[in-house]
C-alpha cells in the first residue's frame, strides 16, 4: 500500500506518519510526507497512491482545490483538518473520513479501519462525484446519476441525460462512498433504487432490472434477494 501524507506542520506530519506505520505495519509499502499542494499534485500524477491523508489548510492555501482533484482519483482520501466546519463539505465531495484536529491514535485508527475493512462510512453526505475530463475536474451531482457500471479499475457513471463519465475509482470504492439509495445489483452494476421500474425474470431464471428509462440491467443471482428486500420490505 502506498500512502501519501500532505501536511505542512512538521510535528503533526511526524505524528501521522508514525501512527500510520504502526497501524499498517508491513502492508504499508511506502509512506510519503509532502508539505504543499503542488508537491502533492505532482506526486499523485507520477506515482500510484492507495490512500491520501490531507490537511485542508496548507500554508494559507485552499485545500478544496486539491480535494476536488483528489476525490476524482482512484485512491481514497482522508481529511485531517483543524476546521470541523469543513467536514460537511468534505463529505459532500466524497472523502472516506474526516479526522478533526487534535486527534489521537484511536480516532486515526478508526479512519484506517474503513480503508481496510471496506466498511461503509457512517455519514454519507456525498453530493458530488468528481470526474476528470480533458484534465479538468468536473463535479457531477449524484442526483443526476442513474447507475454506475464497473469497468475494470474504473467505473462508468451513467446520468439521466444519458451522458456517461469515467471515474477513476473502482466500483467497490464508490459503493463505499455512495449513500444507501445506490445498491449493488450485480458485480458490475451499482444502481439507484428509485430508478427501477420493475424486476423481470427471464428464462434460465435470469433476473433483469427494468429502469424508468427503459434500459435493462442484469441483476446478480446473489444480489437478487437483498434487492427484493430493499424494494418490497
Amino acid at each position, binding site marked *: 500500500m502506498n500512502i501519501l501524507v500532505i501536511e505542512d*506542520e512538521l*510535528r*503533526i506530519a511526524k505524528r501521522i506518519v508514525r501512527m500510520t506505520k504502526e497501524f499498517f505495519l508491513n502492508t504499508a509499502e511506502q509512506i510519503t510526507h509532502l508539505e*504543499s499542494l*503542488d508537491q502533492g499534485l505532482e506526486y499523485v500524477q507520477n506515482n500510484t497512491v492507495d490512500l491520501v491523508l490531507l490537511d485542508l489548510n496548507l*500554508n494559507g492555501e485552499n485545500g478544496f482545490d486539491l480535494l476536488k482533484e483528489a476525490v476524482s482519483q482512484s485512491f481514497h482520501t482522508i481529511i485531517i483538518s*483543524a476546521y470541523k466546519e469543513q467536514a460537511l463539505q468534505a463529505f459532500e465531495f466524497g472523502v472516506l473520513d474526516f479526522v478533526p*484536529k487534535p486527534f489521537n491514535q484511536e480516532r486515526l485508527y478508526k479512519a484506517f479501519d474503513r480503508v481496510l475493512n471496506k466498511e461503509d462510512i457512517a455519514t454519507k453526505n456525498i453530493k458530488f462525484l468528481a470526474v476528470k475530463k480533458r484534465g479538468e475536474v468536473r463535479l457531477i451531482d449524484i442526483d443526476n446519476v442513474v447507475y454506475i457500471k464497473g469497468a475494470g479499475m474504473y467505473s462508468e457513471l451513467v446520468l439521466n441525460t444519458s451522458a456517461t463519465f469515467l471515474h477513476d475509482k473502482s466500483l467497490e470504492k464508490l459503493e463505499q462512498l455512495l449513500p444507501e439509495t445506490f445498491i449493488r445489483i450485480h458485480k458490475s452494476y451499482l444502481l439507484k433504487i428509485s430508478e427501477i421500474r420493475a424486476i423481470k425474470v427471464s428464462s434460465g431464471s435470469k433476473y433483469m432490472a427494468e429502469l424508468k428509462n427503459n434500459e435493462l440491467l442484469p441483476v446478480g443471482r446473489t444480489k437478487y434477494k437483498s434487492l427484493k428486500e430493499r424494494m418490497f420490505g
Partner: protein
Amino acid sequence: MLLYRLIKKLGVVLFVMILLWSCEDDYIIQTPEVKYKTGDAITWRSKNIDDSGWSLYRGNTKDSIFWARATIDILEKPKPFIPQGMLIYGFGAYEVYWDETLIGSNGTPGNELEKIGEIDRSFIIPDSLAKKGTHLLALRMSQKYHPEKQRGLGFVVGDYKNIIQAPVVLTAITYIFAGAFLLTALYFFILYFNNRRFFPVLLFSICSFLFSLLIIIEYIKFYIPIHYSDFYVRLEIIGALTFIIAFIIPIYFSIQFSIPKRKLIATIYFFLLLFLFFYYRGEYDFTTQVLILCMWFVSIAMAITAMVQKREHAFIVLSTLLINVIFYYYFEYDIGLILSFTILLLCMFYILAQQIKKQREVYEYSLVETSRLKNELLKKKIQPHFLMNTLTSLIDWVEESPRKGVYFIEALAEEFDLLNQIEDKKLIPISQEIQLCKSFLNIMKYRKEITYSWHEEAIEETQTIPPAIIHTLIENGITHCIPDTNNTISFQLVQETSSRHRRYFLRTIAGIRKPNKATEDGTGNKYVKARLTESYGQKWDFSSQKHPQGWENIITIYV
C-alpha cells in the same frame, strides 16, 4: 433623519408664508402728487384755495414750517360702523387735516426739540368724512432733522383695524422664522463648540443668527415707534447685516465645494463688497440690493465651478440660487429678501445636514472598524488553524517528550498572556510587540521544528505601533517561506529614523514557497493596513515585496 424632517417642516411653513404674502391685496399704498409750500397759514388747509403755484419739491426747509397738500381716494364705500383710517408714511412732525378738519398729529411741527412721533402713524378718519370719493389731505409739517432729505409721502386708506393689524400679522409670521433661525444658530453654535470643529458649521450658525437679527430689525418698525430722526439708524443696521451675510454665504459655499484659491477669492470679494458698500453709501435699500446681487453672482459662479468639478450637492445649490434670483425679483423688496435668504439658508442647512450625517457614518464605521480589528487580533489565537494545530503538536510533544511538552505549554502561556495585555489597545510599545513576536516564534519552533532566529537593529523601544502588525507579517513569513539548508528562517527588524518619519524594515531571510505567485493582499496585509489607518489616518506607508534574501516588508510612519 431628524434634520430632514425639520427641513420638510420649514418648507411647509415657507409655502404658507408665500400664500399669506400673496393674499395681501387690500393693503394698497397710495402715492398721490404732493404739493409743497414753505410758510404757515391755517387757510392752506382749505379745499378752495388755489395751490397751482405750489411746488412739487419741498426743498430744504431747515426748521421752518411748510405745508403739503394731496388728494386721497376712498375707492369703496365704507361699510357702516367700520371705522376708517389712514396710515401715513411721513418724514417729519405734522398735523393732519382731512377735508379741512384736524384729525390728528404726529409730534408738534415747528417745535421738535422733544422727539415725539413716529415714522409710520395711523389716524382714524371721522365717520362723517369717510365717504367714497376724493378727499383733500393737508399736512402742516416741519422737518428739523435731516432737513435736506427728500422723502416722499405715502398713504394707506381703508379699514382702520386692518391698517393697524396687517403689519403685525406679517411681523408675527416672519418672526416665526426669526425664532427658527435663532434656534438653528444656537444649535449649530453649540454643536461647533462641543464636538465638531468644522468651520462651515460655525459659518452657518453665524449666518442663521445674522439672518434672524435682520428679520427682527427689518420689522421692528411695526411695533416699536421710531422717530423719523432715527430712521436711518435702522437702515444702517440692515445694511451692515446684509453686508456680513453677503460676505459669509459665498465663503460657506467656497469651503463646502473646496473651491481652489478660495482665500484669495474671499479677500478680493471682501474688498469688492466694501467698495460697493461705501460707493453707494446713503442709498440704503439700493446698496443692500447691490450687495445681494453681488452675493448671488459670486455664489452662482462657485456653484457652477463646483458643478464642473462634479462636487456633491452642487446641482442642488445652483438650482436653489437660480430659483432665489427669480423669487427676489418677483416679490417686493423686503419679502423677496427674506424669502430668498430663507431658501438659501435651508439649502445651506441641507448640505450641512448631509455632511453631518456622513461624518456620523464615518465615525460609526470607525467604531465598528476598531472593534472588528480587536476581534481579528483575538481571533488570531483562537482560530482553529492556530489553536488546533498547536494542540495537536502539543499532544504529540507530551506523548513523546513530556519535558519539551512543558516548555511548549509555557511558550503558549506567554503568548496568551501578552495577547491579553494588548488586546484592547490601539497602540503598544514596540518592545511589547517584539516580545509577542518572539514568543510566537517560540511556539512555531515546537510546531514546525524549524529554527527561527530573530535580529533587531536600532529599535527605539519607547516608540509605539499598532498591536500585532509585525506579528502578522511574521505569520505571513512563516506561511510563505521555506527554511534554508540549515533548517532556519531568520527575521530581521531594522528601524530607520529621520526628522520626517520612522521606518521599520522587516526582512524574512529564507526561500519563498511560491516565488512566481502574484502577490495580492491577504487578510494579514489588510489587517496591517487597517491598523495603520486606525492610528495614523493617511500618514503611513506599507509595502511588501521580494528581496534578494527573501521577503521585505516596509512600514513607514510619518511624523
